[in-house]
Structure formats: C-alpha cells, structure tokens
C-alpha cells in the first residue's frame, strides 16, 4: 500500500495570525459610544416677528467674553444658577388661563406665569469659552430635569429619568405606548424652551 497518512500542518503560527488580526481591530475601532446634550436649532425662517414674550416670562442668562455669568442683570456663580432657574420655571404666577396648578413656586407676579410660557434666553459672546457655555447649558437642562423628575414622581411614582431609561431598555416589560404617553405628558408640563443667541457687543 502506498497510501500514507497525510502530514499534519503545523498550526503553531495560527495564534500569531489571530493575534495580529486582533490587534488590528483593537487599534482601528472604537467601543465607546458618544453622548452629549441634544438640541434642536430653530429653523432658518425668521419667525421671531410677531411673537412677543413678556419680560417677566423671560429668564435672561448672559455670558460675557471673560466667561462671567450674568443672570437677570446680576453677576452670579454657576453653582447658584440651577436653583435660580428652577425658581423661575416653577414660579407659576399666572392666573385665569395661565394658572399653573402643579407649580410649587412663590407665585411671584414679577416672574414667569407658567412653565409653558417661561423662556430661558442664553446669550453668549463670540469670545466665550465653549466649555463654559456647555456648563451653563448643563445647569439649565438640569433645572428642567429636576422639575420633570419631581412631577413624574408625583404622577407616576417614578422619576422622568427612569421613564426615559425604561423607554430605551429593550427588556422593559411594561406597556411601551403608555410609557411614551407619560413621557410626552411630563414634557408638556415643563417644555424645554432655551433660546441660544449671540451677545451683541
């Protein structure tokens, strides 16, 4: 018989080849997904004409070229901004159709009527640092999140952040449509109205 066993191929270098590929993929790919502050820009059409915001419903935040923060005409530290924004949004000073039943603020007549009417205007100079701008944005959004969490906790026994987390969770067992309705309701109670503008110098 001439049939011999086929010679076995040396597989010793297989590991090296696999390592090479592995290292290539480690270097060229990214595992982390990005996260950040989502925003919607206003459309380019100039719709501002005709809309009129009462001064008391406007919360003016300005950042100057030296990264100093001015809120409603007075200098302020970043750490105090969130509290001040919450007080403004949750004021609920309106009466009649503007009455806000769920607001727990001071009902000050010189501050906002209700959260739907309340607008935050964030003006920044061209020389302002981007990091400072993001810090201020973060505090303002934090104010909205605080109020939304509070109302969601009161109405549904769960914070707004938890509701949003559940919506993204594929393993969530509850009713998705119901969840969406709840989130929409909370958003309508405290709609995020932050206007970004450039400070004229």
């Amino acid at each position, binding site marked *: 018989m001439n049939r011999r066993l086929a010679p076995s191929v040396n*597989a*010793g270098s*297989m*590991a090296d*080849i*696999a*390592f090479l*590929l*592995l290292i290539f*993929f*480690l270097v*060229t*790919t*990214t*595992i982390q*997904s*990005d*996260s*950040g*502050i*989502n*925003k*919607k*820009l*206003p*459309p*380019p059409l100039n719709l501002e004409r005709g809309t009129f915001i009462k001064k008391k419903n406007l919360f003016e935040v300005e*950042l100057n070229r030296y*990264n100093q923060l001015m809120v409603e005409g007075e200098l302020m530290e*970043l*750490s105090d901004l969130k509290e001040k924004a919450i007080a403004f949004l949750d004021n609920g000073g309106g009466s009649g159709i503007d009455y806000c039943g769920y607001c727990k603020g001071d009902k000050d007549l010189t501050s906002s009527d209700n959260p739907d009417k309340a607008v935050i205007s964030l003006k*920044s*100079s*061209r*020389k*302002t*640092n*981007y*990091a*400072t*701008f*993001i*810090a201020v*944005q*973060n*505090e303002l*959004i*934090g104010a909205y*999140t605080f109020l939304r969490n509070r109302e969601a906790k009161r109405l549904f026994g769960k914070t707004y952040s938890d509701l949003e987390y559940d919506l*993204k969770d594929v393993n969530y067992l509850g009713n998705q449509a119901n969840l969406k309705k709840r989130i929409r309701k909370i958003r309508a109670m405290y709609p995020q109205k932050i206007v*970004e503008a*450039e400070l004229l110098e």
Partner: protein
Amino acid sequence: MSKFKKKKSGELPAISTASLPDIVFMLLFFFMVATVMRQNTLMIENKLPYADQIEKLDKKDLVMYIYAGKPSSRYRASAGDQARIQLNDKFAEVSDIKAFILAERAAKREELIPFLTTALKVDGETNMGLVGDIKSELREVQALKINYTTRTGNAVDNLR
C-alpha cells in the same frame, strides 16, 4: 538491571497550545462585533467639555460629525494656532459645512434623512463665535438636530 525501572519524572510535559488560536479568535470576533470602525483621524485637539445632563447618541450611521478645535501640534505649522473646523479628514472653512451636510445626506437613504443628527465635537477651549457660525450654517441647510458631544462628568470642572 531490573525490567521495571521507574521512569524519571524530571521533565514536565509541555502544555498544549493548540487551543490558543481558538481563544484568540474568540476575542477577535468579540471585538469585530462589539466595536465600530474609527471614522476620522483627528487633526485637532479635542478635549470635550464635561456635562451630566446627557443623552446617548446611538445609531452611529445616522450621525454626522463636525470637529472643531485648535490644530494639534503636528499641524500647527501649516494650519496655524487658531481654532479650525475638521470635516472628514481635512481642515475646512465654515463655508464648507453646507456642502458637507448635503454630501452626507446624499449618501444616506431618503427615509433616514429626517433622523440625521449632527454631532458637534468641539474642544472646550474654542470660542463660541466659531460654534455660532457652525450653528447658523447648519440652520441654513435645515440640519436642525444637533448634539453637543461631551464627556460624562461634573460640569463645574469645565471652569477650571
């Protein structure tokens, strides 16, 4: 000379490495599945600011990236030390953004276009002027969904 002489057990038997490739292949497949190809090589400094009120940016194929910041030390001689915009792998001017967005849109399926988000990866040291210019360009091409990409952390750290 006994027939039943004990064998010397001095040498350890070699550990078989035959399963090593399998282990490495397993790792390789994990990384191939779990990660995404790096899209751009950064030519700018990109230390993103910190924030904690953030949302995750999933669906990477629906995101367009605009980078901005000071050119990194390697490119400083040719690109200057003022903050610049980077689109794909090139330095760009503010006026190039419109063309970039339109090209990105043309590459996507039509039904996905309303869901496209523009991620602004801007270095913390950049002036707001440049960011404002980018935003007004984006408004003009109706790319209204944006995301200020940040790192997770305390926002107060930005002021240092």
